[in-house]
């Protein structure tokens, strides 16, 4: 009787041991599989990335079409202005406004600003303190504009009156396109004034430098800032004729 009991106990312990082994094996396998699933979603990410790139290519093609259409428009304009005194004046005004609006490529002296994420070791524990934010870029651009920059671009994207600079996760959206660090800002204007405006004590570069965010400012004699290569489409704003403008203001 006693022996039978003992062997029963033995069997029970062995069975539990077997269950332990079984669970260990199954759990190990599952954990491994789940990591594999994570890898799969990484490859899914790659697929999406390539789709995104394709869309970008398509976008570029459409931009070329747009450029063509704009050229045609310019030709029509020239035709309309030919031989006409007031038309000539209008043409120069349009050209002037196009520079201000960011519709043409412009060159001139200015400064180049290169902003890079901090390489400092993280001591505050908050990773966000050491990354470049949309507000940092905006403060640099604001400073440049305040110092008389006439044309500004960020990573080749022309900054216009309607341009947004907005944080979208780890990247920044400008004119609806996403850009990641390092951020390269071109600004055309008086190089010395622009340089001094940025690098003054307690200025933008100084403050950002305290977080280890590297902001390199270099002056150059010749910068090329390309035009905005999208469409400007107004849906809600309407142009008021000059007479009614006075009425509204009065």
């Amino acid at each position, binding site marked *: 009787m006693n022996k039978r009991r003992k062997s029963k106990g033995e069997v029970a312990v062995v069975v539990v041991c077997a269950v332990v082994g*079984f669970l260990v094996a199954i759990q190990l396998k599952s954990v491994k599989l789940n990591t594999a699933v994570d890898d799969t979603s990484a490859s899914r990410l790659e697929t999406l990335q390539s789709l995104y790139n394709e869309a970008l290519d398509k976008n570029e093609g459409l931009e070329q079409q747009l450029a063509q259409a704009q050229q045609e428009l310019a030709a029509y304009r020239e035709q309309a202005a030919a031989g006409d005194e007031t038309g000539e004046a209008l043409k120069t005004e349009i050209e002037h406004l196009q520079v201000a609006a960011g519709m043409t490529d412009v060159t001139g002296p200015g400064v180049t600003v290169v902003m890079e994420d901090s390489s400092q070791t993280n001591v505050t524990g908050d990773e966000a303190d050491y990354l470049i934010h949309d507000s940092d870029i905006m403060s640099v651009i604001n400073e440049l504009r305040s110092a008389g920059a006439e044309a500004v671009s960020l990573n080749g994207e022309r900054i216009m009156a309607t341009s947004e600079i907005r944080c979208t996760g780890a990247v920044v959206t400008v004119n609806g396109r996403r850009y990641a660090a390092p951020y390269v800002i071109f600004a055309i204007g008086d190089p010395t004034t622009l340089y001094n405006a940025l690098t003054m004590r307690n200025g933008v570069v100084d403050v950002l430098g305290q977080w280890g965010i590297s902001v390199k400012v270099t002056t150059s004699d010749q910068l090329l800032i390309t035009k905005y290569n999208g469409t400007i489409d107004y849906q809600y704003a309407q142009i008021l004729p000059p007479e009614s403008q006075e009425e509204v203001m009065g």
Partner: protein
Amino acid sequence: MLEIIGLVAGLLVGLFAPWTIPSQWSLYVAAGLLAALDSALGGFRARIKGEFNLHVFLSGTVGNAAIAAFLTWLGQKLGIPLYLAAVVVFGTRMFQNFAEIRRQLLTSRQKSDKIKQDVVSPQPEDTK
């Protein structure tokens, strides 16, 4: 010895079984696994010490696993990682069980050594 054979058999069956656990159940299985591991060690210890009771063993195995799974579930509902309670308790008990098994095995060997010694030199008064 048989215990290790059982463990290896379980491992092999688990490795070659076609099933895996969905990731949302992974935590429950881990908690149950800890309970089972604790029970296995506890059973081993009890058998070595000669105080094994089948009913105590079985109720402990099933009950502990159930409570561990229940704590995990409750923790997920409440937003507190309650399964940590199971981890801590079973973890501690595993160490305790191991310590007792170790002591039992070592002292039983010493005891048998001593018995041999006593047989060789029959002077009970001196050896004490």
